[in-house]
């Protein structure tokens, strides 16, 4: 099995081969691996992996112990250090993420779930870069969303006192 990796923003790949006693399950319990990173650096050796009931994994590589635990979204904790980790199976159909920013239209999205406290501009308003657009409150903290550019407000979706989810588009600036 060979998988593509993106770890801490760097691409690479890991090839995993089961040892005879590790065969029979989808992922070998013991095997050997070869991890190559885009900068040409390489780690390889024999490993043993154990999924623990706590949700963590114990990984032994050449007798050295690594405790891998779930972390913040998109991250794992390895021996207490956070690592941003993504894996892809190159044979599985991979969804291409197109960045549809398009023609200077910028979505102003809520950075966290919360409540709209105030809407500071109206549709059609001219705005300057850094000008406050909308105030969102969560966990007793108010966050003023500022315009990322000088332009015009083309759409206002946020309504005062309404609840919003993380990533929800509050307005569009052109």
């Amino acid at each position, binding site marked *: *099995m*060979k998988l593509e990796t993106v770890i801490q923003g760097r691409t690479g790949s890991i090839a995993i081969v089961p040892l005879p006693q590790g065969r029979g399950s989808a992922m070998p319990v013991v095997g050997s691996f070869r991890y190559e990173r885009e900068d040409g650096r390489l780690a390889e050796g024999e490993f043993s992996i154990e999924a623990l009931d706590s949700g963590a994994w114990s990984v032994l590589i050449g007798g050295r112990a*690594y405790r891998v635990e779930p*972390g913040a979204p998109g991250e794992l904790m390895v021996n207490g250090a956070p690592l941003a980790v993504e*894996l892809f199976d190159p044979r599985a159909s991979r969804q291409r993420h197109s960045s549809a920013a398009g023609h200077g239209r910028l979505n102003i999205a809520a950075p966290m779930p919360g409540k709209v406290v105030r809407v500071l501009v109206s549709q059609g308003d001219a705005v300057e870069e850094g000008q406050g657009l909308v105030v969102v409150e969560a966990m007793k903290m108010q966050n003023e969303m500022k315009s990322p550019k000088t332009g015009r407000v083309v759409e206002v979706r946020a309504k005062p006192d309404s609840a919003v989810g993380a990533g929800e588009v509050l307005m569009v600036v052109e």
Partner: protein
Amino acid sequence: MFAKVLVSNRGEIAVRLIRALRELGIASVAVYSDADRASLAVGLADEAAYLGPSPSSESYLRIDKILEAARRHGAEAIHPGYGFLSENAEFAEACAASGIVFIGPPPEAIRKMGSKISARRVAIAAGAAVVPGTEEPIESLGQAKKIALSLGYPVLLKASAGGGGKGMRRVDREEDLDSALREASSEALRAFRNGEIYIEKLVIEPRHIEIQVLGDRHGNLIHLGERECSIQRRHQKVVEECPSPAMLRYPELRAQMGEAAVRIARHAGYCNAGTMEFLVDANRNFYFLEMNTRLQVEHPVTELVTGLDLVEWQLRIAAGERLTLSQEDVKWSGWAIECRIYAEDPGNRFLPSPGKITHLGEPSGPGLRLDSGVYPGFTVPLDYDPLLAKLAAWGPSRERAIARLDRALAEYSIAGIRANTALFREILADAEFREGRLSTAFLEGLFARREPRESNLEMEAAAALATAASMPRRPAPAREARSEWLAAGREEMLR
């Protein structure tokens, strides 16, 4: 002593208080809003009372509902914890009027010391130095401009009824004064139902050191030493320690500040536990800043170093008992450091990160204290402060306390939401921190000088192996899956 006490708070402090009550053989009553029905506190208490919908204005800030719950459950006293109604004199009065003991200072002392403006007057009357600034709430922009000009920029706007950095704004230029005043006032109004703002001169890069005081109802008043709380973000503390590294070089500072704090408390007619906050400049001048007329979030570091239980003393004092220790009996042993574990993203302006905790690995072992209010599967509500837990470590020296805390943080994993545990490991590893060179500008400095962490290849491989082990595999006939493995094996042999 009381037979039953209601805890009018939530989260980790409610858990802390319920544990103390259990240890003292006192029955506990938890309260909860819709968001907290499944909270740890409700599960640990002997009894629990529903207050109302999630917004704190409809639950934890409702004096009528809390008193009604206390009456219904037959609680003799209420512990308010911190935040919410803990520094609300009307609440303390309403408790007394209902024949329920408020575990805290008398309402008059809350009034005197709860307002920063009146606390300044008390401190001045007690002969303590204060930061230059106004003593009256600001009434107009014109007045604010005049005062700011005479103090000299930068100035600090502060909420008269404030705490926790709410309603506080730094202003560097006159043209920013108008909007900062409006923001600070509306934030203060929402947080404390009091929009009064006053202005202070901003002391540049000060240390924030506070003194714990403890007094009974019979006039005995002592201090339990200091806590250094210089490391803050948005004027809210994130790391606290006792002793202060400043005391290492200048041991006389503790006695000087302690005496000043006791003097102010005496002037205010204060009893029960309270904290005097001071700014200490580079020349070790200390200025009284404000008083917190309640238990502090960071009280565990004082408890670890003095061996005293502050909550137990709060209960005993509220029940009318005498302080059985004198100033000479208070001894400080070793070093304790606490970090506040918040549901927030230090990588993105410390924005709060509410949501469900999908995995929780908690540290344990020698010299640690974890005061947590969460468990795996708990949903951190977006309605309240993002404090999840406090992790404190004790060691015989500062160096050992740091090593122990770092070890514990490496054992701490929180998934599903973002938390600030990794930032603490960076703070503990920082040379300035290790040398005890602290100021309230510490975090800004750290962010400016930190370098991207170089990760270890084998750690990355371990992370990739664990991820591969948990990847959903495409459903495929067993034979095909097997041949895949054989193919991989052959490929490997050919290399």
